[in-house]
């Protein structure tokens, strides 16, 4: 999705939604997509890849993150969520531009940035 005025505006609307948790959460469920804001995922992923150029390999990222994962988007989200929780529990975190993220969270975003995961 190219960054244009409409998409930025949509981002802004979602940002407002983010301040209203109940409404925002139900939107995620209705849509059944992995990321509500693919642009957001791409931005995080781009930062992560800049920091870890050795991971700029979609096949390997996919293998590590999605091996054994269900294919439907809703279930896929659950799979990645679970991996994030495991990462945090195991101390597998990364610092991306100062943000402390689960490694799987950053890698999922990296896959989006590489165009290898449909957000």
């Amino acid at each position, binding site marked *: 999705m190219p960054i244009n*005025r409409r998409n930025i505006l949509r981002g802004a609307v979602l940002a407002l939604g*983010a301040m209203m*948790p109940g409404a925002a959460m139900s939107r995620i469920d209705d849509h059944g997509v992995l*990321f509500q*804001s693919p642009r957001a*995922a791409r*931005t995080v992923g781009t930062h992560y890849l800049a920091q870890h150029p050795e991971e700029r390999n979609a096949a390997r990222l996919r293998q590590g993150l999605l091996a054994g994962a269900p294919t439907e988007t809703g279930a896929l989200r659950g799979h990645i969520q679970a991996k*994030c*929780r495991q990462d945090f529990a195991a101390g597998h975190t990364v610092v991306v531009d100062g943000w402390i993220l689960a490694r799987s969270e950053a890698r999922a975003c990296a896959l989006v940035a590489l165009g290898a995961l449909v957000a």
Partner: protein
Amino acid sequence: MIEDFREQADAANLDCDLCIIGAGAAGVSIAREFLGSAISVCLVESGGLDFEAETQALYEGESVGLSYPDLDIPRLRYFGGSTNHWSSQCAPLDALDMAPRSWVADSGWPIERAVLEPFYDRAHTACDLGENLYGEALIKALGLAPPAIDPAKLRNYVWQYRTRPNLGHAPLRFGAFYREALEKAVNIRVLLHANVTDIRTNNEANRVEHVAIAALDGPAGRIRARQVVLACGGIENARIMLLSDKIEPNGLGNRHDLVGRYFLEHITGFGGRMVTADSTPLQENYNYHQNTKFWFGLALSEALQGSAEVANCAALLQYVPNMESGVGALRRMWADIREGEVPDDLGQEVLRVIKDLDGASTAIWQRLAGKAPRVANPAEILLDIRSEQVPNRDSRVMLADDVDGLGLRRTRLDWRMGEQDRRTMEVMGRTLGEEFGRLGLGRVRLEDWLLATDGSWTGDVVESSHHMGTTRMATMPQRGVVDEHCRVHGVENLHVAGSSVFPTGGHVNPTLTIVALALRLADTLKDNLARA
């Protein structure tokens, strides 16, 4: 009784059992212990009952190290001392704060934390606080059910304040609060406008013979006492000992070049910010409770301090109210877009990502649905990190070349921090980020300075007006200025009260411990005076 030295002809030559120099938290606390006793006490205070600019100017000095406020700003020189502007945020030191830590050079008090416990009880009364109750017991008593942080990494941490109904914070002003009792005391003589200029010993420098006093543009005199306590605050205690150089050329009690060294502060900085889909579970816990009586934050566990080889550190969450409406934000974004600029805010992006992936926050939201957050939609949640500084021999109080209104050399402060201090704060920030992430409470972004290893970070943190370490306590004179009873090594009747005796200061505000140690010293003095 409370008298003005300038109007007391006989005060030029006084005898008493106990001379206490300085009427701040420490000095007043010790004096009160002798109310109604047979011991004659002279409490010598530089200032009057209120702020006076000329007296306050005696506190001016110079700073040659890290940036520090002008030295007359972080302390007050009149009856009640710096408690005339303190906030009364209190908590006791942890056991580990006082223990020797192999990873913190020059750590370890000569007394164990348990020794202080009964004095902390009494200090709560003296500071007019609530019960001496902290930690998990207090959290339970407050009826809180905080998130299940990993106790191997973090501890729930609560501070107390003095509050009054409908007023909120009402810090105890030691001068104003105890004035009447001291005024009525027949055995206690408070001498205002009397500046101690020299503590004079015998030729062997092992016994104080008299304390020299002078008023600004006024009379001078001397006080002879069986026991003397120096209680002028963490910077001035060292200065007065360095100035008392008539018998000991390097200053009283300074044979091992320790007086003024190891100056410590508590380091404070906004180390990070947080995004969360829902701040309710944070605000319900990490916040003020019972009006503003208690403030609930987090501290590093003892285990993590040891394994990461860092000092003690705490953090509070500050919820910055969202002053502008969402519509306003939308308009601003539109304006950016019309200018052809793309708003590039990774914070918002991360928020969107975690809202997508953070299942736990959804669950928490559902559990707490209906509970209004205290600060609706905070614009930001800041990590307010408050850290212990590790002892540093080169961080020090010295004498400057220029002189004050009494002709005494002013203070020169060389405050220094080190890489272990930054690392302590970084470990705190990272651990909060990892734990809040694990619990699905949100994501933390560390500030750039916290990760900067080039020394530039010191410009992003501030001091806390807590002056410690300059007459540190140790069993051996080679390692400390005072012994475990706060007596100056080698000087049989001179004691020091205040945070200058702290060898290390933990992360917590010092005054409760200052008062606890002062009360302990008062007991020692009672014994000494009874025996003599």
